[in-house]
């Protein structure tokens, strides 16, 4: 394999795939980047078996072939002195010459044959496939990723639950103490519905792989993997094999009281209240009256009381909630107001962002 590419193009693409390189693996070949050329396009790929990322770009005047180069290649290319990079692979022993300007590296590569498939196989039929606008996908992830449990071994609570129904996809997540759910419009390409669960940790990479220029993303579910692709970039995500609780059954539908409060004021007030928090105890007591929300918090350090104006329909009530959980939502609330729906004393509280009516966040109460 022999090729010549502009250094900046190669560096940018390597930066994308490098997100998937495991720092240490029991499978040595994974600790590298796959370079593969079919004569017209160069494909780079890396995977830690949880997430696989590949990216391709057009090249000219190249020989076909593939090689796995050590992960150090990412930093090497970034620091090369010249405008372009010449790569020459000795097919006999996979020693690879990398030349740029006056610099001349030789990297000891290995055969690419053992590298696991990162891309979806083109001959396979997807379980479901749809397209979605990048900003829609990013919004939904923003509204759900924060309530995923990032502790190891929490099963379904380590993931975001995707539910595709016709032209709509819903995303839900929970760490058992709160639950976030949202939905967005998609174009369903084969008319099939599907439910699947993806680890939140690897979904965080979506924002780093795709950017606003990518516009419309194609999504497809093949067997045990979920793929997102756009342009030459493709990311495959491992699925979690756990059962997510039935969201519609958990979220209350009848409300005792519905209130609306200024989102920023509430956020600031809660931030003040948690200043008093003692260790893991970040509980605030909310007293909701007709036109007034009273926030109280107390710990061994002292106490705070703060009143906020609010508009409410329904009966007054009191409830204890974890302020940290409420703040997580408020930081992702884009509307000026935030609505708070209550089921009753010491019952769950449902928070909504009026700007995104699809987004719903339920915080479960603390009973003292």
């Amino acid at each position, binding site marked *: 394999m022999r090729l010549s590419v502009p250094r900046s193009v190669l560096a940018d693409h390597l930066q994308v795939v490098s997100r998937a390189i495991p720092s240490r693996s029991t499978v040595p070949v994974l600790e590298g980047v796959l370079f593969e050329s079919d004569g017209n396009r160069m494909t780079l790929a890396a995977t830690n078996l949880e997430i696989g990322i590949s990216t391709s770009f057009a090249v000219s005047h190249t020989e076909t072939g593939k090689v796995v180069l050590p992960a150090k290649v990412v930093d090497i290319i970034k620091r090369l002195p010249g405008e372009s990079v010449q790569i020459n692979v000795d097919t006999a022993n996979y020693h690879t010459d990398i030349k740029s300007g006056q610099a001349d590296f030789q990297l000891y590569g290995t055969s690419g044959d053992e590298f696991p498939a990162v891309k979806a196989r083109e001959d396979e039929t997807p379980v479901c496939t749809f397209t979605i606008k990048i900003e829609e996908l990013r919004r939904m992830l923003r509204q759900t990723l924060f309530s995923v449990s990032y502790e190891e071994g929490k099963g379904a609570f380590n993931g975001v639950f995707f539910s595709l129904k016709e032209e709509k996809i819903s995303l839900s997540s929970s760490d058992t103490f709160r639950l976030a759910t949202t939905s967005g419009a998609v174009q369903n390409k084969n008319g099939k519905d599907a439910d699947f669960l993806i680890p939140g940790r690897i979904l965080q990479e979506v924002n780093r792989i795709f950017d606003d220029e990518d516009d419309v993303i194609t999504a497809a579910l093949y067997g045990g993997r979920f793929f997102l692709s756009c342009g030459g970039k493709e990311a495959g995500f491992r699925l979690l094999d756990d059962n997510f609780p039935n969201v519609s059954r958990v979220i209350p539908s009848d409300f005792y009281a519905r209130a609306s409060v200024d989102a920023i004021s509430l956020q600031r007030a809660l931030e003040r209240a948690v200043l008093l928090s003692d260790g893991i*105890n970040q509980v605030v007591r909310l007293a909701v009256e007709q036109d007034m929300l009273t926030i109280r918090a107390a710990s061994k350090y002292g106490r705070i009381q703060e009143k906020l104006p609010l508009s409410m329909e329904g009966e007054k009530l009191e409830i204890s909630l974890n302020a940290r959980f409420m703040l997580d939502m408020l930081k992702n609330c884009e509307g000026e107001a935030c609505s708070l729906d209550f089921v009753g004393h010491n019952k769950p509280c449902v928070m909504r962002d009026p700007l995104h009516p699809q987004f719903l966040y339920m915080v479960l109460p603390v009973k003292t």
Partner: protein
Amino acid sequence: MGKIVLLDENTANKIAAGEVVDRPASVVKELVENSLDAGATRVDVAVAGGGLELIRVVDDGCGLAPEDVPLALQRHATSKIRTAEDISRVLTLGFRGEALPSIAAVSRFRLATRQPSDLAGTLALVEGGRILALEEHGCPAGTEISVKDLFFNTPARLKFIKSEGAETAKITDTVQRLALSRPDISISLTVNGRPLLTTAGNGSLADVCCQVYGRQAVKLFLPVDWQGAKLRLTGYVSHPSLARANRSLQSFFVNKRFVRSPLLSDALQTAYQTLLTRGRFPAAVLFITADTAEVDVNVHPAKREVRFSGERDVYRDVLAGVRQALKNDLLVHKMTHQSLERSLPERAVWPATSQAFSFAAEQAALPYFATADPASATPAAAESRQDEGSFPVLAVLGRAAGGYILAQKDTGDLYIIDQHAAHERVLYELLLDEAQSGQLPVQEIVPLVFQFDPVSAQSLEKSLKILARAGLTFESFGNNSFILRTVPLFYRHCLNQDEIQEMLAATAETGEEPALFEETVKMMACQAAIKADQVLAREEMSSLLSDLRGAKQPYTCPHGRPTTMLITAPELAKFFRRR
């Protein structure tokens, strides 16, 4: 002709011997107890061949009058009681009048005795129960009994005697316990001509303990002195670091009589709850002094068992007394100069001088019971001990890999604290406090459904109320499945199926409600506690240490593992040869 005949004296004695004299150690016990009852100030025991060849007990007690000697060799002949009513008041160790004839029935027996006021003593020779000689004899005041060829005429019994070593160990054990029971009497034991034990008889229990347990062990003894409503509890219990896998280091004495009592053992063990890991037993030498009317010793021919009229009160007093003793002392695991050196891999680096040095250090530490003598402990001294007992204020120095916080007291003492164990202790007490006061805040969770096997489901069903008190609200969902609705607020961890199963299994053994509750709380504290590999900021470490200082029992985790190790400044200095 009738078939029933009255057994002759000799046969009856052999049968009685089966109950009282079942092995050489019980002969030693009976003989030494007789000596103690005879008011001896010195008792010398010599044995050979595991006690089968020879047992000789010599005392300087009151001796026997010549006319009493043949009577003493008859069954139910005793000087210690006169009527059955006396049994309830008996203060002597023996009273049944069975020991001497029983022993004489199964051995070649020699008794030489003289009352101090008499000019001549008496010698009796008995073989297999037959009196061979009974004559005037010159001997020192007191009694000397030799028992040779024990069980020579009961081959069945002889067959069940264990090896010489095992029997000697039993005898040693017996003599040690008798010595512990009477620090005021000098007791010695010689085995095959080699002296094994000699107590001073100066009345100091501490000295006897040193003889029996060794000086190093005794440094870890804590004095007990408790006055209950109906009894007084004195003696020593051990620091938790001195514990064994069995109860061999425990001796209980009721009115100076050694007894085995599950009641007392239980009370002792309960006092050490959360201080010891499962299956470890502390050392203890505990004396219970109670009105003889409250204690029934006539339960077992060898009087090893004892019954109390108010068992509950006894249990409560022993528990309270031992707890008091434990509370009074700084229960930190101390790393001494000697143990540090023992742990060094290369002894070669530490030449012979280190040995001599260790010895000197030991000698220097001799007044080990200066404050420990219960009699001399004034209220003021007790108060200062109380103060010592609390966890000190420590400055964090840093953290060693594996999750150990290094900290220093203002005196320069170095403390090493296991962060997981320490946090576990803090959480355990917090949760227990809140749960017991019924103010445990719980966090409601997204309902989680668990499916169990029928056995686990049944034990869970039974425990719903207790678990709810510990903050875990389960609801039965039918068909062996349960919904978990809340977890304790501080816990912030949703149990998974395995963890619940494990908890049920751990508590199934005990089955009792308080045990289940505490076990549940321990489990949650352990899971919620920071792990050993978690890196803590200096502030976090300080805060953990100050939390630990607030704990009631800061020195062990709820499972009984130590939280803290101490290397005192002088120990460090000694180690580096600065002094």
